């Protein structure tokens, strides 16, 4: 059997989190992983370590401590200013081989996936991608990853017995973010950097990042599916009235009606609003995982048999183009009253 570069015996009782940062701030998914990692580490009496890579990023370590990290391993170098898979894989590999963590978790972001995929092969270990839950079996020291989405809503529990680190990626929003504790402190370990500029083959020719939307934390979510025929104006109007934001299933995203970062589901984001309203959504399991953390689910579909109704509290068999305008009218009249 193929062996990882280090095994169960050499592995340290530590959970490592890849801390992804942009513009001096940690990504939401890194905070979510820190909180989940903290719970697992406490339960098993392991340590929680954040791996922070970038240029002039040492200040972010405090944020990681406040969200639960005991230690931050810091790789700070001008060559690490923007993410390139070559440089980040090399540095992560060096860090991993020096400290030999038992578990290594990354956000399933474009960069997190690039890094995870290369690193797993470099250290000859397994990788569970897009996990929907994680548990650390403290007796066996084994990470049990749940992966869903094979049609029909099947969940698989996946483990690796002999390979270390046990790697997994998790989508943004799968775990709730924790509460920061500003008083928490930790230790920074600086990683010696052995990078040469000419070993980095990737050139970032252009890079434009916007503020981005974070649907994981919105209080109300209005989702447009294929059934709304691209009419996101209607969705936005409703979302505005209830202080929420707009998401979509994959088809309207693929058809270019709305930005990809608003895609909800297995390969999008997982949201946990108080209310989600699904309009013209059939209810594929790939999608349902993205809204099932909602307190209340409302769905509108012309097809009484649509699977989405199995995952819904308030089901409306009807045409979105009749129900939603009626609802916005009803809600607007309240507003006018409230404003006198």
């Amino acid at each position, binding site marked *: 059997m193929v062996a990882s570069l280090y095994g169960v015996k050499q592995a340290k009782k530590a959970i490592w989190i890849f801390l992804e940062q942009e513009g001096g701030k940690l990504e939401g998914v890194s905070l979510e992983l820190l909180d989940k990692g903290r719970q697992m580490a406490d339960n098993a009496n392991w340590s929680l370590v954040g791996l922070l890579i970038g240029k002039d990023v040492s200040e972010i370590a405090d944020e990681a401590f406040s969200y639960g990290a005991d230690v931050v391993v810091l790789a700070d170098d001008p060559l690490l200013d923007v993410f390139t898979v070559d440089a980040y894989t090399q540095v992560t590999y060096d860090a991993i081989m020096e400290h030999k963590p038992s578990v290594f978790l990354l956000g399933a972001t474009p960069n997190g*996936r690039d890094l995870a995929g290369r690193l797993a092969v470099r250290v000859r270990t397994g990788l569970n991608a897009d996990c929907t839950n994680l548990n650390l079996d403290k007796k066996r020291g084994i990470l*049990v990853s749940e992966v869903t989405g094979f049609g029909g*809503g*099947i969940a698989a529990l996946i*483990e690796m017995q002999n390979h270390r680190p046990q790697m997994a990626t998790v989508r943004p929003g799968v775990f709730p973010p924790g509460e920061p504790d500003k008083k928490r402190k930790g230790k920074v370990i600086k990683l010696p950097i052995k990078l040469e500029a000419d070993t980095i083959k990737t050139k970032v020719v252009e890079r434009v990042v916007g503020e981005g939307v974070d649907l994981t934390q919105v209080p109300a979510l209005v989702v447009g599916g294929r059934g709304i025929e691209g009419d996101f104006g209607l969705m936005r109007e409703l979302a505005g009235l209830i202080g929420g934001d707009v998401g979509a299933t994959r088809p309207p995203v693929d058809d270019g009606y709305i930005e990809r*970062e608003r895609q909800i589901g297995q390969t999008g984001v997982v949201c946990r609003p108080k209310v989600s309203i699904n309009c013209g959504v059939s209810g594929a*399991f790939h999608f349902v995982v993205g809204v099932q953390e909602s307190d209340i689910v409302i769905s509108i579909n012309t097809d009484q048999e649509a699977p989405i109704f199995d*995952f819904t509290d308030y089901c409306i068999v009807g045409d979105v183009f009749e129900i939603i305008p009626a609802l916005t009218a*009803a809600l607007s009249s309240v507003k006018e009253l409230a404003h006198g």
Partner: protein
Amino acid sequence: MANLHMVVCLKVVPKPEEIRVDKKTNRLERTDARSELNPPDMNAMEMALSIKERYGGKISILTMGPPYFEPLLRVGLAMGADHIYLLSDRDFGGADTLATTYTLAKGVEKIEGVDLIFCGEESSDGATGQVPPGLAEWLDFNQITMINNIELAPRKKTIRGRREIKAGHEILEVPLPAVVSVAVASNEPRFMDYRIKDWAFEEERMTVWSKDDLDVDAEYIGVSGSPTIVSDLAQAATRERKREFLTGTPEEIADKLKVILQDAL
């Protein structure tokens, strides 16, 4: 670059809606499900074909799987690819990402002289999206993932790929040889060209390699090369929902919804 050699990794997948779970073995039962070419791989194929049209070169299809995949793979030839390499061996079965990427990498090495590999963004049955970087790592190729556009600089032998990130985009450049994964829905895959259908089904357009044909280490393939195991399969946990149907005219329904929303928010 008339001698540009491209590989498109195609995966044959069971139609997702036809997969069941075998309760006894904890395995996904795919045998009853009909197969199709993984839809995201069609976007990869289309991107490779567009490069071939502009710069020449040839396209090889690379797949790991059983011999009965053949007719589906030949559709790729009828779209405009030149040759199929099918890596087929009982011992390749049960592979996770590590073993799969290793085996595919061995196939690429055996094909020889490959400059550029195209993969789909993910597969509809596993959806991990981890094959492209893993494959690149085994081969020591550069990589750009999830691109929706590619430009080739034939003289410099570099590619530029554009990808969407966080309410923006980036353009990355890497020297060949490289692996790219192509974002779902980034182009319109063409249909097969019926004029070349007979040609596409000629025997000599396909090469089948078993593990003895490839320079593989038996420890690294199939089940023994796969660190991960499925320890349990279950119906995914879902929250209990009220499933209460609201009826009436749109206005009546709207009034009921208004109350529900006001209570909840």
